[in-house]
């Protein structure tokens, strides 16, 4: 073969490749074309960010799973999630399976009046006995239905429980060892296990396999679960409350953010959780709806009180003042979060905004470091994860903090681990050389502050991973917990929030807005001040 034809052929093959490329591009251009209306069949499909845990509400951990479980199961006391965050920073309590309750004057005895005429999805009637059976599963080591996992998840709710007594079919008496002002609010929570009530018949039939046969009282009934593919719920037409308009809900785990966006655009799903911050603007421009709230989420750092640098209050204050929370919220995270200006989230009771401590002030930060004899800075380590539930973009956020701290001379080293490894390391408590540990967490109950900072719960015995101990704080929180008057309790919680800020024991960074993106034809979805949602009012308008 001579060179001539070869060159011609090469040119030809190049032309062929070019033609293929143009064909590909023109097909891509069609991507902009509009398509026919989506056929929803009145079933609401949600793309969720990860595979859910077990459908046993008392055992399951994590927000992702409670968002599903709370459609099937209900606790005694609930939160009203039909009010958007803008109208209620803390969701008001409302009766759940207990129609009403009385609290004794000494705050020790709660009498729950169980709702009449409610049946579980398997037909079992709801009564006081059924509720007692459930509580014993989470608390009574001597009962046959006791579950170590359920007890481990709900230990902070039942911590002060003394005794249980079924008075009659619809009356249950719960006696506490000491007053617990946040007891009712804690009954509504579900991020770390919930107290939602399961059919006792189903529990007796399936035992610990209940998660594969979940039977509750909620607005939706369990239909089918195919792991990794879907969890199907159907409307409960016999629901005691507002019967939903939609025929059912499908939760589809799609761990990849691009896959979620694609599924929404193609009409395969009607709503996506945790959209990629970069894609939100485009979706909104295309006509999709953005729903955001102020859930009790806080992305924060704890200081190691045993470390030679971070044990100094001036150093901790300097670090708090050096961090550019606004910059992180706007530039790095594109407005998908709010800068955190309090120890707890805005949606937690007892919230205190403290701009003086959490708004950037580099001059003051430098002065504080100099006053601690560290004008030339120092080196310390921050531990965080690479991923995980509620963690947003931990590595990039840690790097942002690293740049902020470099401006006052602190050389921050970052150590990251994959989420589950990190959770184990974090729970052990900070080791030598580690100055700060990051976590994202929070509850609408200010009791969360007790869980995170009480000296009784220092790691490894609890989640106070920085070994923070302040007797004045413990006293304030104890007063808040045992207060009989809610206003009194609130006063003490505010005091506790202020003490933690004055001690600069934590570094609150940002509060997530928990964005969801919905198809244009969806209405009735509300972002309330919680990490989870109520789907009874959702409508598909087609």
């Amino acid at each position, binding site marked *: 073969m001579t060179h001539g034809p*070869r060159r011609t052929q*090469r040119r*030809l*093959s190049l032309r062929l*490749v070019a033609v*293929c490329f143009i064909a590909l591009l023109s*097909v*891509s251009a069609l*991507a*902009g*074309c509009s*398509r026919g209306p989506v*056929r*929803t*069949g009145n*079933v609401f*499909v949600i793309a969720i960010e990860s*595979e859910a*845990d*077990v459908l046993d509400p008392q055992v399951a*951990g*994590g927000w992702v799973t409670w968002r599903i479980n709370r459609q099937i199961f209900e606790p005694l006391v609930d939160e009203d999630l039909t009010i958007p965050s803008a109208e209620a920073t803390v969701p008001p309590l409302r009766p759940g399976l207990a129609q009403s309750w009385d609290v004794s004057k000494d705050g020790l005895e709660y009498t729950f009046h169980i709702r009449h005429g409610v049946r579980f999805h398997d037909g079992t009637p709801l009564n006081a006995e059924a509720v007692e059976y459930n509580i014993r599963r989470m608390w009574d080591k001597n009962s046959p239905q006791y579950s170590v*996992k359920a*007890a*481990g*998840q709900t*230990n*902070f709710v039942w911590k002060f429980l003394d005794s249980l007594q079924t008075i009659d079919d619809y009356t249950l008496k719960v006696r506490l060892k000491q007053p617990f002002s946040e007891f009712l609010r804690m009954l509504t929570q579900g*991020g*770390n296990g919930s107290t939602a009530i399961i059919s006792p018949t189903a529990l007796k039939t399936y035992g*610990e*396999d209940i*998660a594969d046969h979940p039977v509750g009282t909620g607005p939706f009934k369990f239909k089918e679960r*195919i*792991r*990794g*593919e*879907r969890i199907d719920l159907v409307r409960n037409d016999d629901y005691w409350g507002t019967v939903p308009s939609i025929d059912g809900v*499908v939760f*589809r785990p*799609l*761990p*990849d953010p691009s*896959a979620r966006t*694609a599924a929404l*655009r*193609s009409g*395969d799903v009607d709503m996506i959780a945790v959209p990629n911050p970069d894609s939100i603007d485009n979706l909104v421009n295309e006509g999709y709806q953005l729903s955001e709230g102020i859930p009790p989420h806080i992305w924060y750092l704890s200081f190691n009180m045993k470390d030679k640098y971070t044990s100094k209050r001036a150093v901790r204050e300097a670090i708090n003042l050096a961090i550019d929370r606004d910059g992180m919220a706007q530039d790095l995270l594109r407005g998908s979060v709010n800068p955190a200006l309090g120890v707890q989230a805005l949606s937690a009771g007892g919230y205190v905004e403290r701009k003086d401590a959490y708004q950037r002030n580099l001059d003051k930060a430098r002065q504080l470091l100099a006053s601690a004899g560290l004008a030339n800075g120092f080196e310390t380590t921050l531990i965080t994860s690479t991923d995980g539930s509620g963690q947003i973009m931990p590595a990039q956020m840690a790097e942002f903090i690293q740049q902020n701290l470099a401006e006052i001379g602190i050389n921050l080293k970052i150590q990251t681990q994959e*989420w*589950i*490894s990190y*959770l*184990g*390391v*974090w*729970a052990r408590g900070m080791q030598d050389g580690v100055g700060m540990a990051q976590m994202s967490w929070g509850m609408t109950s200010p009791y969360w502050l007790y869980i995170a900072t009480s000296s009784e*719960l220092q790691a490894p*015995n*609890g*989640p106070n991973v920085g070994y923070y101990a302040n007797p004045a704080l413990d006293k304030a929180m104890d007063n808040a917990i045992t207060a009989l008057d809610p206003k009194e309790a609130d006063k003490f919680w505010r005091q506790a929030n202020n003490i933690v800020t004055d001690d600069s024991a934590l570094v609150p960074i940002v509060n997530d807005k928990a964005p969801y993106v919905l198809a244009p034809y969806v209405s009735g979805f509300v972002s309330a001040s919680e990490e989870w949602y109520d789907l009874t009012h959702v409508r598909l308008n087609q």
Partner: protein
Amino acid sequence: MTRVIGSRLFSTILVLFGVSLIVFLLLQMVPGDPAVTILGSGATAETVAALRTELGLDRSLPVQFFDYLGGLLHGDLGRSLTINTPVTDIMLPRFANTLILTAAALVLCILVAVPLGVIAAHKQYSIFDRASMMISLAGASVPVYWFGLLLIGIFAIGLGWLPTSGMYNPRFPGGVGDLSAHLILPAIAAALVPLAVIARMTRSVMIDILQQDYIRTLRASGLATTSVLWRHALRNALPPIVNIIGLQVGYLLGGVVFVEVVFGWPGLGQQLYTSITQRDIPVVQAGVLFIALAFVIINLFADVAVGLLDPRTRRKVGS
């Protein structure tokens, strides 16, 4: 032949034992405690200890491992630590889903790659040859993840011909038709790299064979080109091609993990990823065992097939 298969099966057992031991030890070495995973950030030392006892994680490592092996010999893969369900119940449907995807991708590979390679070899240095080899080189270098998103962008979102993800329509789950529609894009994405490898391999083997004397003799005796190409040359080229296909199945089984993530395909890879991040040791072990088993068995089939295709080896193993 029986002896070959017998010794292969014996070594399979050794391989599986080694694989489960290594996976077990690896998972012990990485930090992270399943009990802490289950109880989350609110866990106290006391509740973690109670749960560790219940899950049997407080026993010594050899006891845990041999207990697991004992169960395995009885066909019991254990229970998942996190979801308290028998591992077989979780993994068998997942494995079946992965096999569906892998098989579809493999069929696609063979149907496209082998003819492509043969024609390219026949028309060596032609436009067809250059274009197809260039495209296959590009295909082998394209990240599967990106290619998957491109397919979704064009065929699912843009043209609306096919669904973006999953195995069945979430609203109106259907039968085989629904499944096939969901299978096309992920199968194409998964097939891309092995397809390119097999096509290039077929081409080079065929070029080699087409230069052999007996091919020239066949041509000289006036046999039609199609017959020379497909009946004689390809037949002699098959043993190495079948071998490479067998090896590509291993690549496919590993590579579909990414495809499963992009297309939300509920397969083994996705489950493995979830279970690894939760330190759910029994599930991870079962997943790795399934993959190892599939790999060994498919390569055994490939070896047997090569033996049957090549009269020389047939005689050798037969004697």
